[in-house]
């Protein structure tokens, strides 16, 4: 009898899973709602339909026929945005090149679009969104100009549907003055730093010469065509840099080339705060789980930098620069909070701040009417590692449990005994 009941329940659950997404509205009621950028609603309701938030507040009418989720004792937060990842294009990072689409051959590949090969059923992707990260910037890492980075929603069913903005920015591993590859990329490029910089400048100059004839020539060059918006300052370029002299050099290069530029990684930013402030560029800072670059640096140099950026009024986001570790985005932010960043600013650094830096703040980054219904239901502050993430919605759809949770449930159910 009991087993029959279980079967019925299981069949019911299967039916729920198998059900095609309904255009039915969802209302999470009686929850604490933390919209970010607007006052906290101590106990209220948030409604979303057709992938968008339609209402939130203390007194909100629940539309007829809406699915009602009881949120009492729970909190609703906007989904987080990790603005520097390889989620969906990197699966097994060591000794399994067949699972990696991160590093292309060649030094200049602006024609590549990072988000094109994002795998919707990547196991890593599933674990990242299970922690409340709902949007990521996916960036290939090879060569000097790696590819165009893509903003990807970690939900839905096809690569096409997931790409929020395929051509969000141009990823450049900025030449390092200390040898090797400056940014996060693969093998070192040839030539001195000065030669490498000149090569990069020449490439931008060529792209600007090509821009006026783009679309008009019978001999189209996809790489040059792809460069046009970035070379002319219409779309952002991301310089992946680390050391202080390289940050200075990247700023100088960006200014000389009249680019719209963002710094990524930028671990030694704490040494050049005034220069970054004067340049007026934004910083995608992280991962916080990095070592100080010198033995003589303060032990907490990386942890304290977000607070220093905030004090200087520099726009910044906290990022992981990772695939598997992208799920640790909130805990990267927590390390910054521990070392001086205000709690509200730490939350903004992984939600609205990266959305603003990448120009998608009208779509994601906060809970507001008209924005994408990317949100999480939690037992509390998502930056607190003890908090449980109850459920995650992306574009209004409830996301399935991660591979980790599935295997956990499967092996928790193993009876005692055995060999």
């Amino acid at each position, binding site marked *: 009898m009991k087993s029959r009941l279980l079967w019925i329940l299981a069949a019911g659950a299967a039916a729920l899973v198998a059900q095609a997404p309904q255009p039915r509205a969802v209302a999470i009621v009686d929850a604490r709602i933390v919209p970010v950028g607007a006052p906290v609603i101590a106990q209220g309701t948030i409604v979303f339909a057709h992938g968008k938030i339609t209402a939130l507040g203390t007194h909100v009418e629940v539309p007829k026929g809406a699915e009602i989720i009881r949120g009492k004792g729970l909190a609703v937060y906007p989904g987080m945005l990790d603005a520097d990842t390889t989620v969906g294009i990197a699966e097994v990072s060591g000794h399994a090149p067949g699972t990696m689409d991160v590093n292309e051959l060649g030094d200049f590949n602006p024609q590549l679009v990072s988000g094109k090969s994002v795998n919707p059923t990547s196991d890593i992707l599933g674990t990242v969104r299970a922690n409340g990260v709902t949007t990521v910037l996916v960036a290939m890492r090879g060569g000097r100009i790696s590819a165009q980075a893509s903003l990807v929603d970690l939900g839905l069913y096809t690569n096409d549907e997931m790409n929020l903005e395929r051509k969000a920015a141009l990823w450049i591993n900025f030449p390092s003055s200390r040898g090797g590859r400056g940014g996060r990329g693969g093998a070192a490029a040839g030539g001195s730093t000065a030669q490498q910089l000149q090569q990069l400048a020449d490439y931008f100059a060529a792209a600007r010469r090509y821009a006026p004839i783009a679309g008009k020539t019978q001999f189209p060059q996809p790489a040059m065509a792809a460069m046009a918006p970035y070379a002319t300052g219409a779309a952002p370029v991301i310089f992946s840099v680390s050391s202080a002299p390289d940050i200075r050099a990247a700023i100088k290069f960006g200014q000389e080339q009249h680019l719209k530029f963002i710094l990524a990684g930028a671990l030694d930013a704490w040494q050049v705060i005034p220069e970054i402030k004067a340049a007026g560029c934004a910083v995608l800072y992280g991962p916080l789980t990095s070592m100080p670059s010198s*033995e003589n640096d*303060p*032990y907490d140099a990386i942890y304290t930098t977000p607070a220093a950026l905030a004090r200087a009024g520099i726009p910044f986001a906290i990022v992981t620069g990772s695939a598997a570790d992208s799920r640790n985005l909130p805990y990267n932010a927590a390390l910054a909070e521990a070392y001086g960043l205000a709690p509200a600013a730490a939350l903004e650094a992984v939600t609205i701040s990266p959305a603003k830096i990448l120009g998608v703040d009208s779509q994601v980054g906060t809970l507001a009417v008209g924005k994408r219904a990317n949100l999480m239901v939690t037992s509390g502050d998502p930056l607190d*590692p003890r908090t449980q993430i109850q459920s995650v919605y992306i574009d209004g759809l409830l996301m399935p449990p991660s591979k980790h949770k599935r295997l*956990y449930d499967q092996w928790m159910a*193993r009876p005692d005994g055995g060999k």
Partner: protein
Amino acid sequence: MNRCFRYAALLTLAALPLAAQAYPTPQQAAGLAAPGDMLISNATVLTASHGRLENTSILVRAGKITAIGPKLTAPAGTPVIDGTGKFVIPGIIDEHSHTAVDGGVNEGAPSVSAMARIKDVINPHDINIYRQLAGGVTIIHIFHGSANEIGGEDAVVRLKWGLPVDEMLYPNAPQGIKFALGENPKQTANPHGRYPATRQGVNDAIRTTFIAAQEYRRRWDDYHAAVARGETVYPPRTNLNLEPIVGILEGKVLVHSHSYVSAEMQGLIDISDEFHFHIATLEHCLEAYKIVNEIKAHNIGCSTFADDWSYKMEAVDGIAYNAALLEHKGVRAAINSDSDERARRLYQDAAKVIHYGDVTEEQALQTITLNPAWMLGIDKTVGSIDVGKDADLAIFNGDPFGPSALVEKTIIDGRVFFDRAQDLANRKPVAMYERLFKPPLSLGLADDGGGQ
């Protein structure tokens, strides 16, 4: 010219009595060498053995905890740390570390290098010792790498920054030895053309070593028996590679085995049954959750990552719930770092065991304190806040598992080896020095030829 200038600057720095980090002067080091007295008053104490105690004081005499309770008083002259608003936990024990190993951690040619010893190659000046103190770590378990089925003898080291290695080794810690299974000893990343190249071969190489050790022990037994009979015989030749394996067979040396997939762990358990030895811990053991019943039946500890996975094929079934599942099913789990970087924030990793699988606060704390102490065979003297135990403690600004936790003081044997306030104070003169003497970074560095 630039290089000359920098050498001159370095020499000047060496002459200054100030170091960027709080590296103790010889006089201070002499003071730190002897166990200390102190009173930590009115703190929230997470004991790791008997729960959370509010408004509690800890009295330390000669490096040992002598009293725990509300409103303790100390003899005049005892240093007092006001713990009001602070949280005290046992010093963090990182069960899997390669910190401070001076040089490589693997042997290339032999697949079994049991004769190599970590304690011979510890660099007490490794900056990571200080950085980890700043993360509340007081003891690290230093291992060989995992390129060899049997890597060599480990060391249990207290992070007594500024003291010589001999004073850093944990007194009376049982000797342990590093084993390794799976992709690393079978040389997936770096094929040498060396046997073995499969998991079956790894298992065979370990079995063969134990067979050789049995035979070696028998030869010594025969020799001792002959001597006892009054015969004059030559002793067998000492084999340094088999001595530690005999130690395992005699229950004197603890086996800690790097492992990933459940089948290879089961294979090692089978060997331990065959040769009648106990496995102290499975290290990493990302798939331990798949053979938890078998691990429990053999009383093996599991020292794993909080959430690292998918960095190679044998790590694709690693789940962040591993430690919690083990704890729920009665197996003791530790969260380790295996990384100079991660070791600095093990408290946050331990909190993730609550996130992934909802263990209690005390269970989460035990994964970085009492459980690793048990795995290393030193839990009678360290690993929890109990009367009689070593005063190895970390003081946090608030809840160590909360989002704004940082370490304010780290104490070993009743002596403060890390003090954030002191560290911050030390930075001012260093920053002034840098302003005065350091060449502007934009000058010439780009022409320096590159390559560090």
